[in-house]
């Protein structure tokens, strides 16, 4: 019997040479006359170990990483095919504390299966949620989502069940399910990992949503910076259609659902749901004023469920295990789990799915192992480019929408970007404004002009320490205009990183205790 070897095909593995490693393994095996079964699995999310090669030995999967093409020969020499040790040996991967201490509901199959194998998917509970949903009435499916407490994972945290219910209750000849896969936040990659690593789960979630609200067409809007995710999703849709899970008659139920994959074109604002809909309609990605809500007047003017990848990816689990099992995780009004993403200057960066309530410190220290540079941590940006920078003193805040908001923080899409003490926080604030200026759609004034002025004011603070006080006051006033006056989160939340940097690190803005207080 041939030995099963797993080499991930997640782009975080590909970008550090996974294809070259796979090639080297095949060459070595051929040269040595060893029969191997090379599976291109997805990533487990222990990204500092990528490319993480696994070998199935005696019912276990033993891991080695990070493997370079050059190291492959020595792995063969050392006998890794029979689980022998090697300097790169990680041991039985399932027992790794990074994985063992997680609560994986959404990422339950990540790294285990071949992402594009329908058989593999179904052998690991795949489509159980869909089968459960097909036995329920639309209203009952919606009720399960409501009971699970699932909130939108894109950042706003709006209860998904309420969105679904509104679409269900709105009559129309056509309804849509739209997946927001425009994961533009720096420090986040969970959507990408779902699409590349477990695409059928997302497809299953979309079909469930479609059946629940009476939508027969779905769109997945994926950012153009994710070519691998686009490729895998397109292939997965083809295979799911051939397999009878998509099309005119899903699993013989008489219900129809079709999915189209759409590639975005480089606009961060298109991650905002109404701008995304405009873009799907072939227009400029300009934010729409609400009301009307997309649930009532959405894509092409029709009622539309628009949810983040992780939101819809949670639906299969909720349907197959029941809403209570899901809701039992979490704290307060944040139920279930969130796939946190540890990024930036961190030793063990990767994906950590935990119930809401875990603290940033637990994530960064217990899982992440502190900074990669080994220098003291100075700030953590949570929630993407529109999220606040938190100093070390706030890292014990539980990761929950409300608890974090109470500390001026934003949970967003669950990304944590760690900075060590070499960071210049005024520069980070300037960048936040610059990013807003680059990405502003240009519709509303506070964002269109404010972001450019914001960058200029911070440059002034950086260049002229003597005038820093007056300009810090102007910066605060500008931020207030942007927070309260902007049309969408781009303009209204860009001040979060700016003000948090100013509040927690005034010394970087050439401010003394006195001038800081006056501003």
């Amino acid at each position, binding site marked *: 019997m041939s030995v099963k070897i797993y080499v991930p095909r997640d782009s*975080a593995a590909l*970008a550090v040479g996974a294809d070259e490693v796979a090639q080297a393994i095949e060459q070595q095996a051929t040269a040595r006359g060893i029969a191997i079964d090379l599976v291109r699995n997805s990533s487990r999310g222990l990204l500092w170990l990528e490319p993480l090669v696994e070998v199935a030995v005696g019912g276990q999967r033993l891991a080695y990483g990070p493997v370079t093409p050059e190291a492959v020969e020595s792995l063969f020499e050392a006998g890794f095919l029979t689980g022998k040790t090697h300097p790169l040996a990680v041991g039985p991967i399932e027992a790794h504390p990074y994985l063992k201490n997680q609560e994986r509901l959404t990422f339950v199959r990540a790294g285990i299966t071949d992402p594009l194998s329908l058989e593999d998917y179904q052998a690991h509970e795949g489509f159980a949620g869909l089968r459960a949903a097909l036995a329920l009435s639309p209203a009952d499916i919606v009720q399960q989502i409501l009971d699970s407490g699932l909130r939108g994972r894109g950042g706003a945290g709006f209860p998904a069940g309420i969105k679904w219910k509104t679409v269900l209750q709105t009559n129309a000849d056509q309804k849509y399910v739209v997946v927001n896969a425009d994961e533009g936040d720096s420090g986040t990659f969970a959507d990408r990992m779902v699409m590349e690593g477990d695409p059928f789960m997302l497809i299953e979630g979309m079909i469930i949503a479609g059946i629940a609200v009476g939508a027969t067409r779905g769109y997945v809007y994926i950012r*153009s910076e*994710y070519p691998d995710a686009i490729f895998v999703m397109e292939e997965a849709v083809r295979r799911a259609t051939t397999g009878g899970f998509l099309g005119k008659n899903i699993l013989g139920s008489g219900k129809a659902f079709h999915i189209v994959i759409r590639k975005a074109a*480089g606009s961060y604002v298109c991650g905002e749901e109404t701008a995304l809909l405009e873009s*799907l309609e072939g227009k400029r990605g300009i934010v729409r004023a609400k009301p009307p809500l997309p649930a009532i007047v959405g894509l092409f003017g029709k009622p539309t469920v628009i949810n983040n990848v992780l939101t819809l990816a949670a639906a299969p689990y909720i349907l197959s295990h029941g809403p209570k099992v899901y809701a039992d995780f979490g704290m307060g009004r944040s139920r279930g789990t969130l796939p946190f993403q540890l*990024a930036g200057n961190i030793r063990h960066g990767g994906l950590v799915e935990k119930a809401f309530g875990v603290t940033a410190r637990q994530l960064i220290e217990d899982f992440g192992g502190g900074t990669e540079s080994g220098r003291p941590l100075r700030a953590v940006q949570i929630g993407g480019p529109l999220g606040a920078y938190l100093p070390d003193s706030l890292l014990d805040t539980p990761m929950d929408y409300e608890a974090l908001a109470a500390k001026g923080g934003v949970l967003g899409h669950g*990304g944590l970007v760690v900075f060590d003490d070499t960071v210049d926080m005024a520069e980070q604030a300037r960048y936040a404004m610059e990013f807003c200026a680059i990405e502003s759609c240009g519709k509303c004034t506070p964002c269109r002009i404010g972001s450019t002025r914001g960058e200029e004011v911070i440059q002034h603070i950086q260049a002229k320490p003597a005038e820093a006080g007056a300009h810090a006051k102007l910066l605060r006033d500008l931020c207030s205009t942007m927070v309260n006056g902007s049309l969408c989160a781009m303009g209204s939340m860009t001040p979060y990183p700016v003000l948090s940097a100013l509040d927690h690190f005034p010394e970087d803005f050439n401010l003394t205790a006195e001038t800081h207080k006056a501003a």
Partner: protein
Amino acid sequence: MNSMTAREAQAVEAALSRFQDEQGALLPLLHAVQDTLGYIPKQATPTIASAFNLSRAEVHGVITYYHHFRQTEPAQHKLALCQAEACQARGCRSLTEKAEAALGCNLGEHTKDNRWELEPVYCLGLCASGPAMELDGKLYARVTPERLESLIRKKELS
């Protein structure tokens, strides 16, 4: 008005035949044209507009809104360096300086001989393994200055 070259016209025609009848498919159409040619010819705007029953203004508004779309021919090699926070925390600023020095052009510009263009990109989703970059369509992570220089050299020789 200048007309499209035969190659351009063919690319636009092929893309139109794929997407003309799909609802709201202006973006997929523009992608298809750009994927084939490397850019969207300015002269294609009237053709696209009339096929989609749009005005030229509408098509122009869309093309100029999205930073991914371009109306000029790309350089021979495209290096896109991530400039976002997670990569900043992992040294993308100094890597960018290295790239600018190695190529002799600034971020957002192309070299005089148009062999290289150096573009910023805002997140490639490789935030735990930065600095990340895309070179001629292929992703690279944990890029050190040495690795960057050797990759550039390899392209120069090819």
